[in-house]
């Protein structure tokens, strides 16, 4: 542990730290553009210059200089001040200074740092260079004249995303950042370069000219576009959500979010259910809440009622529905809309036990039936890190384009019964072996054979549990904790032939199987569920209600309410509460705090932020054999997996340009 002095203050820094990190540890701010904690060190902007003794009598780039014992570092000397002013002046020489029309204004590193460390004016009066516009796809808007060549975007796509598509062409003054042949950036995390870009060269295209950062209300929330539960900040103005940004949480999403999490929010204002609708003569007609409640009460369902929860629903909504059904005498609740029926008596068996951050440490990974890039792009980032550290990764299922070194073992699940020796040996010999089961594996009954493999390979050992299930629905783990599952899956509900079906934002259900029931859809978007419903009650999307979510690793997280739901829409729990009155039962809560308290009383783990404890894995069933094949994955289109995304113009554009445009092109070639 080297000891250094920073501005006269002596501190000890971890071995391998840089001078910049040492300064930060000492509480000194060091301005920087190219340095980023999660990317490799480039050392090309020179903004981080400090004075270091011993060393040459000139300022040194602190981000690229290892801290060594006995160094005397100064960040406050005249030399440093002048160096920063000089670098700033050079950086601004070719910068257009078009802040008034730049979307980065107000949250721009260049702006902030030139105010803090720059000179008052420029001595440069030659012509500035200009760079032609570069196309980077429907999400990223570029103004490359503003680029300061920090290469953060290049390093992100190469190192984190694993899709080498951005590069720096030409050199010196003529250097230009571009995607290959100006093709659209084409991966699920592409828009993170918008956050990384320290200037306004890469900005958000859908959000262009929408607002200034200081006008926005910022709400801490949780993403629901997949089961990772990325921590997000929802920026809103008035009743409209304008954008979503990632929050830093090293355990979950590090500093990234997927393009879907970021850009599906324009779908929140389109195709909204903002009125009550009742089907009359085959057509949905506007109605009042009273009429709707009366119509529901009129079927006299009694205990013959079932509820299906959709993929985006928060725990409170599900709990309220469970209470309502319980009061009516029914336990017909299910959340696995598409008919999956894996056993849920032990949640450890369907949890991502290694944790999302933990999977980085795995040294041998077998992935069964998961198109990870589409099902959980942020987990893909972790897998890439694991692979870079030398993990061996095998996949079973249809091939997809991985961003890490991996070997596909074929689509046939029976390969699990008889794995090739080298795979077996790798998994057996690994220090921290892991298995990841995706939705396609669960649907094909691969859970039991995977548990058998887990036992054989000792996936659970001191300080390590490598048995992982990767869900795709933000609501899944919460639903399972609340008991929103039947032994036989949704088939049990169908078999019970309920008179009344409550669909809580459930859009993937095959509603035809419930044709005897009065179908009530409580949700926020006019999607498949509303189209099949007899009565539509307008609810709230994830940004419009506070809620508890549990991600695929069993992490309990809370989201706040950012905006009010449009029109007549209500927070879902209030609808269920009112429905209880209409049906003449009591559910035991009248306010959200009461509801949450009741929920926590029943499932205490939901009251503690952080990982829930599901106990030990169940013993494997002897003789469990895998069968079937995984020729396709549940997600057919990454950008259109939920009703919000399907309503989003941006996501539709991505889908047609990035996924289907390619097909068109290839067909033409």
């Amino acid at each position: 542990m080297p000891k250094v002095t920073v501005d006269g203050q002596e501190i000890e820094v971890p071995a391998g730290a840089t001078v910049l990190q040492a300064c930060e540890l000492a509480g000194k701010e060091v301005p920087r553009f190219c340095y980023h904690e999660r990317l490799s060190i480039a050392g090309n902007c020179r903004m981080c210059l400090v004075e270091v003794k011993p060393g040459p009598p000139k300022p040194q780039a602190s981000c690229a200089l290892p801290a060594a014992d006995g160094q005397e570092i100064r960040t406050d000397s005249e030399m440093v001040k002048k160096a920063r002013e000089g670098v700033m002046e050079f950086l601004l020489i070719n910068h257009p200074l078009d802040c008034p029309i730049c979307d980065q204004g107000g949250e721009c590193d260049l702006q902030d740092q030139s105010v803090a460390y720059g000179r008052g004016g420029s001595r440069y009066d030659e012509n500035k260079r200009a760079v032609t516009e570069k196309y980077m796809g429907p999400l990223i808007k570029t103004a490359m004249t503003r680029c300061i060549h920090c290469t953060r975007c290049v390093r992100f796509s190469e190192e984190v995303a694993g899709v080498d598509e951005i590069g720096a062409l030409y050199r010196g003054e003529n250097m230009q950042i571009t995607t290959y042949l100006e093709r659209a950036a084409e991966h699920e995390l592409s828009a993170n370069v918008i956050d990384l870009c320290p200037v306004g060269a890469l900005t958000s295209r859908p959000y262009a000219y929408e607002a200034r950062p200081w006008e926005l209300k910022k709400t801490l929330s949780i993403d629901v576009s997949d089961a990772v539960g990325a921590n997000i900040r929802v920026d809103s103005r008035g009743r409209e959500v304008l954008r979503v940004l990632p929050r830093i949480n090293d355990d979950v999403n590090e500093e990234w979010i997927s393009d879907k999490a970021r850009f599906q929010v324009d779908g929140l204002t389109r195709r909204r259910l903002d009125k009550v609708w009742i089907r009359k003569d085959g057509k949905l007609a506007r109605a009042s809440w009273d009429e709707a409640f009366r119509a529901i009460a009129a079927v006299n369902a009694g205990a013959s009622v079932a509820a299906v929860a959709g993929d985006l629903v928060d725990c409170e909504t599900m709990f309220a529905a469970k209470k309502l059904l319980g009061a009516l005498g029914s336990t017909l609740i299910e959340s696995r809309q598409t008919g999956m029926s894996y056993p849920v008596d032990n949640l450890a068996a369907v949890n991502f036990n290694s944790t999302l951050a933990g999977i980085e440490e795995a040294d041998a990974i077998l992935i069964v039936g998961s198109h990870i890039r589409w099902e959980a792009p942020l987990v893909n980032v972790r897998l890439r890190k694991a692979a870079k550290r030398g993990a061996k990764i095998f996949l079973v299922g249809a091939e997809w384009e991985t961003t890490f070194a991996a070997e596909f073992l074929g689509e046939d699940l029976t390969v699990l019964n008889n794995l090739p020796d080298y795979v077996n040996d790798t998994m057996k010999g690994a220090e921290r072996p892991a298995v990841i089961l995706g939705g396609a594996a669960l649907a094909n009954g691969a859970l039991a054979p995977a548990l058998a493999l887990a036992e054989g390979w000792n996936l659970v050992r001191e300080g390590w549990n490598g048995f992982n299930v990767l869900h795709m629905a933000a609501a899944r783990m919460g639903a399972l904790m609340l008991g929103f599952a039947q032994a036989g899956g949704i088939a049990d509900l169908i078999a019970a032939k309920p008179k009344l079906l409550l669909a809580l934002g459930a859009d993937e259900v095959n509603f035809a199987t419930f044709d005897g029931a009065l179908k009530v859809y409580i949700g926020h978007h006019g999607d498949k569920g509303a189209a099949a419903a007899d009565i539509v009650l307008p609810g709230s999307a994830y940004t419009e209600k506070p809620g508890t979510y549990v991600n695929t690793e069993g992490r309990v997280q809370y989201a706040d309410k950012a905006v009010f739901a449009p029109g007549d829409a209500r927070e879902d729990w209030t609808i269920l509460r009112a429905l209880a009155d209409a049906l003449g039962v009591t559910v035991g809560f009248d306010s959200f705090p009461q509801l949450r308290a009741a929920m926590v009383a029943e499932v205490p783990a939901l009251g503690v932020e952080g990982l829930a404890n599901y106990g030990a894995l169940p013993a494997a069933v002897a003789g469990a054999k895998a069968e079937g094949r995984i020729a396709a994955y549940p997600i057919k289109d990454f950008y259109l997996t939920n009703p919000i995304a399907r309503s989003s113009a941006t996501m539709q554009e991505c889908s047609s340009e990035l996924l289907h445009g390619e097909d068109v092109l290839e067909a033409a070639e």
Partner: protein
Amino acid sequence: MADRAPHPDSPELRARWGNFIWNEANQAKAKEIVARYPEGRQRSAVMPLLDLAQRQVGEETNTQGWLPIPVMEYLAAYLDMPVIRVLEVASFYTMYNIAPVGRFHVQVCGTTPCVLRGSDDLLETCYKRGMKQGHTTADGLWTLTEVECMGNCATAPMVQINDANYEDLTADRLDVVLDLLARGEQPKEGTQEPGRHTSEPANALSTLKDMVTENHDYRSAW
């Protein structure tokens, strides 16, 4: 350099170059070049291979050679590396032609020593023959580029044409060189100054006189 840009991608370009593969001789050469790099570092061969590919394109088109986009893609696949990285290298170094050139690529040095020694006249000579900077003449014979110092300042001004340097030029001497090339003959390379061999002092020795007979340590004189 500012107007350097890869030749635009088009169906015609793909039709012409989409099937590019090494010819037999280069196939062997490429293998040998890649083998020079340690295991796992094969990508480092991108620079010599870009040169090799440029030369092969040159042979096929009877020009100095250049690097069409599909050829760079072929190289990227050959070295198993992202094509954007290949393009980065090719666009960084001006000796890779990323747009078509003519039979002879006339690169006139325009850095200070050459300018002081009359490179403007050389450019004028080129212009008189219809050459234009950054363009290829209609007959496909000449492409003119002004470049930075080529390291021949002692024999300035100089012009590099394809693989050969022509030094100590005057307008007339350059004319002779260009005429010979146009006729398909190979002019003498290097200095064009009669009596001079390489870059030895053109007249009587004026500096480092003590070095003539033996190595001399000048440091005490500084």
